[in-house]
């Protein structure tokens, strides 16, 4: 039988979603008496809260409570953060607001309409304070300090040295340096945040349903804030979620806020975020300023690298920040074989919404700097950009490759991937298009980007933020656990649960394929239930859907659980069919003799044995009713004493190449041709993989050309609607030619790597390189809007 793995199938998820029968958080029934909440938000970027007068609002019919920061301070503790710095954040502003949109009070009423009416009666007096928006200005000693107890806005500075960078720079023929600014953006899932919370005074426990995405390392953060042990915060995740892209981690402060509201009112409370709130205050990727410099030989070989990365996390540092600064840390040298590298990582706070998880998670920021630098090396040395890339790629013979800062690149053949992408006349075609356009006086450029795409994060990577001594004191952090459970019902029907949260990736389809492959069933025979319940499902801090952990993690756990279940069923089958276990196979819905396929029983009959006849099972066997596999790969070691860290388990490769032309009238960037080569190891389901890559590509285009959260110098937020914050429609997404190479990972039994973030990392850098080539300029700021192109062409400010 053809294994269902590796083949495209239609998705199990689709019929319900196409028929309006999805079960998203806001669709689910709520208990009778549920109240509705509305958040009152700060209009100031920085101000002291002088007073809150809610008397008129509370007196209104149907209004149950107006909750303020004072209430929250009494009933909860500030959220834990990775950095031991006195930056305290509660779920509502306490004493002071620090960004426009910060939650200040919560109105709880019998309907959302009533809550919003009552909010207009709440009088809040503020005393405005000076705000600081620019991350460089925020580092100056004269800057207004956001958190007085921290005494500075630059709350973490760590310097790392790998190899002998000093000598590398001393020996170099030349140095090439660049400063790169990466903006703030989100990928705005179409469904906003939803929380429904209940409180039981009898048990002092909370039961919360939220479209939270994980990582579940945030669960202890929420439980601690609510001052309850973990089991007293039951967190349930609905069966469907309207996209996430990292953003729905940041629903967690609202989980705590809504839980507090349930406690205060004694009623279930529901809060549904609206789009205006989402754009203003939900979450953003951090903006980063990178000063990067390479020591190079005259033929373009990079001998050493220095990076100074200043990342702006906005008004607070929320768990698990500053993740984007450290998630790529072991792989900071990207796709290149560079032995010597210095890295300085700095975390700064400004009066913007707090930054957090977003698809790509640190990759777009890193590669914008690294790949722009490689293009500059080519320009300054008079070389061809593609030759500089090829000269520095990690050679295939060095795989598996230990990168300077600690990542273990598990497999790949980067030079071959680049050769096939540029081959078949593709690069020649781009050059022809460029030459023809330039001959006609038009502005046309070619860009490249080479990207190593990490997947399944080492839960210990963030501890690289601490010094080795501090890490020793804090206790070891490392690894990442994945879990899948397979259950068999009395008639032998198979069902699966897993430690992921649904966001649209088609995990149910792929898990069914994996389990069906081991059990000799059709994927349709396997029922997958992915709603989560922390009180009843198995989970670890690594649970959730983020950083491409599904393929190298949960998928592997499914494979392991299914193989173990298959082994048990073979033993049971052997006894019932009177043959040896080695002669048993599971195929075509039967358990049968390999040598004599007629000696067979239906899968369900033998699989149900453990329910009906556990006493007659083979001697010593535990009933084959349920099998939970835990996958904990040993390669995810803690940071070494010299700060080397294998930040992820698998490392895929993406190579992008594009031609762009600048419209002479509108100054728009038109993508003329785009080629993207991926090596993500073994592909489990080609059409689902393709969907992930195309989705990431579109988000990469969005970051390169359209999306940016903007504030003015005083801190006002300028992109609060979809008319100001430009999400690309179908008209704005150019065609892309996706190419594939499959170099399986040797570190997982399935050989599959993550693939859903690579284009988020590569596309902004590739387009910026093409624009730099088209205009012959050194500095290109994304998103490359017509306004910015105009400024570059006319030589005036942005």
């Amino acid at each position, binding site marked *: 039988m053809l294994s269902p793995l590796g083949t495209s199938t239609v998705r199990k998820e689709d019929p319900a979603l196409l028929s309006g029968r999805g079960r998203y958080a806001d669709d689910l029934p709520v208990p009778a008496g549920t109240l509705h909440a509305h958040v009152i938000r700060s209009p100031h970027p920085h101000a002291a809260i002088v007073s809150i007068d809610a008397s008129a609002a509370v007196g209104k019919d149907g209004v149950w409570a107006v909750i303020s920061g004072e209430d929250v301070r009494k009933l909860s503790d500030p959220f834990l953060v990775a950095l031991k710095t006195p930056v305290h954040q509660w779920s509502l502003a306490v004493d002071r607001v620090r960004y426009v949109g910060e939650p200040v009070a919560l109105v709880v009423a019998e309907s959302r309409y009533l809550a919003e009416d009552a909010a207009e009666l709440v009088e809040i007096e503020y005393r405005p304070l000076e705000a600081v928006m620019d991350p460089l200005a925020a580092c100056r000693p004269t800057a207004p300090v956001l958190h007085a107890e921290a005494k500075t806005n630059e709350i973490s500075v760590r310097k790392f040295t790998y190899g002998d960078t000093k000598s590398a720079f001393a020996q170099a023929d030349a140095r090439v340096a660049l400063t790169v600014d990466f903006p703030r953006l989100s990928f705005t899932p*179409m469904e906003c945040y939803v929380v429904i919370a209940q409180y039981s005074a009898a048990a002092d426990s909370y039961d919360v349903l939220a479209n939270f995405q994980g990582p579940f390392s945030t669960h202890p953060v929420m439980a601690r804030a609510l001052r309850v042990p973990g089991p007293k915060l039951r967190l349930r995740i609905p069966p469907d979620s309207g996209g996430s892209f990292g953003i729905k981690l940041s629903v967690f402060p609202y989980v705590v806020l809504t839980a507090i509201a349930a406690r205060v009112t004694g009623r279930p409370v529901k809060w549904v975020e609206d789009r205006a709130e989402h754009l203003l205050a939900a979450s953003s990727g951090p903006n980063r300023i990178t000063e990067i410099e390479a020591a190079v030989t005259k033929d373009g070989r990079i001998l050493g690298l220095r990076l100074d990365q200043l990342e702006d996390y906005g008004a607070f540092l929320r768990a698990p920040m500053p993740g984007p600064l450290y998630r790529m840390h072991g792989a900071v040298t990207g796709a290149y074989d560079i032995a010597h590298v210095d890295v300085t990582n700095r975390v700064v706070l400004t009066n913007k919404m707090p930054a957090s998880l977003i698809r790509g998670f640190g990759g777009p920021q890193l590669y914008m700097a690294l790949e722009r630098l490689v293009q500059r090396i080519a320009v300054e040395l008079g070389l061809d950009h593609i030759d500089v890339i090829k000269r520095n790629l990690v050679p295939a013979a060095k795989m598996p490759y230990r990168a300077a800062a600690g990542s273990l690149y598990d497999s790949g053949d980067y030079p071959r991937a680049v050769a096939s992408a540029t081959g078949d006349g593709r690069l020649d075609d781009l050059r022809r298009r460029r030459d023809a356009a330039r001959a006609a006086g038009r502005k046309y450029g070619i860009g490249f980007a080479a990207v190593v795409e990490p997947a399944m994060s080492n839960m210990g990577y963030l501890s690289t933020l601490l010094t080795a001594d501090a890490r020793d004191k804090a206790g070891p952090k490392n690894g990442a656990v994945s879990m899948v459970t397979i259950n068999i019902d009395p008639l032998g029907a198979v069902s699966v649960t897993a430690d992921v949260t649904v966001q649209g990736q088609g995990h149910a389809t792929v898990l069914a394929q994996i389990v069906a492959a081991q059990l000799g069933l059709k994927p349709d025979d396997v029922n997958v239930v992915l709603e989560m319940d922390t009180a009843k499902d198995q989970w670890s801090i690594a649970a959730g859907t983020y950083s491409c952990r599904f393929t190298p993690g949960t998928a592997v756990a499914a494979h392991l659980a299914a193989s173990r279940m298959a082994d048990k069923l073979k033993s049971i089958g052997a006894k019932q069919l009177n043959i040896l276990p080695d002669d048993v196979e599971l195929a075509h819905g039967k358990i049968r003799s390999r040598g004599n396929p007629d000696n067979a029983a239906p899968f369900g009959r033998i699989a149900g044995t453990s329910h009906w006849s556990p006493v007659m099972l083979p001697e010593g066997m535990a009933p084959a009713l349920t099998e939970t596999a835990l996958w904990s790969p040993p390669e995810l070691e803690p940071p070494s004493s010299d700060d080397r860290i294998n930040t992820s388990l698998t490392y895929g490769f993406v190579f992008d190449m594009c031609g762009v032309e600048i419209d002479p009238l509108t100054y728009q960037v038109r993508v003329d041709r785009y080629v993207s080569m991926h090596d993500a190891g073994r592909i489990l389901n080609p059409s689902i993989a393709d969907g992930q890559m195309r989705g990431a590509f579109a988000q990469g285009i969005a970051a390169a050309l359209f999306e940016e959260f903007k504030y003015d110098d005083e801190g006002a937020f300028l992109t609060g609607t979809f008319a100001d914050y430009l999400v690309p*429609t179908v008209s704005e997404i150019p065609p892309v030619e996706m190419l594939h190479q499959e170099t399986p990972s040797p570190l997982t039994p399935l050989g599959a790597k993550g693939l859903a973030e690579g284009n988020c990392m590569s596309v902004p850098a590739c387009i910026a390189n093409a624009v730099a080539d088209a205009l012959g300029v050194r500095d290109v700021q994304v998103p490359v809007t017509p306004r910015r192109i105009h400024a570059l062409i006319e030589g005036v400010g942005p």
Partner: protein
Amino acid sequence: MHRVNKDQRTRIRLTLNGRALSAEAEPRTLLSDFLRHSLGATGTHVGCEHGVCGCCTVLLDGVAVRSCLTLAVQAEGREVRTVESLAAADGALNPLQQAFQNHHALQCGFCTPGILMSFTDYLKRNPQPSEAEIIEVLSGHLCRCTGYSGIMSALLEAAGHSRISETDSSKDNI
């Protein structure tokens, strides 16, 4: 013309997916909220509440409208169709829905009902649109998951194009 006061709740009667229904609403109640919360038709999603994203698109007397920019009172006495009406009673998908499944035109599925309703209206009025016409109509919808390529392939199939766009052919390369 029937007049209602600002604070007066009135009973709105309409036909939803062929069934006569009624519920109370304020004059300011949005049709999207009315469908979801008063009539229990949660297949219609709310994505932006300012008319940009298209998630909440429904048919009002057969014409696609943004239900977040429509008041419930405007639907009084009229016929509303939502995504729940598309599949057969036994769950069988209609050709447009089936094309979406065939071409992986959805991931999270949140924007999908609006797109299906827009094209239910549009393909009825223009059963064989060109690719450019499809792009123009689809531009009224935001999808964050797919990059639109699967949606385009599905819509081309539903519009009877035998040529499935170039974005789809590269899937064979995997």
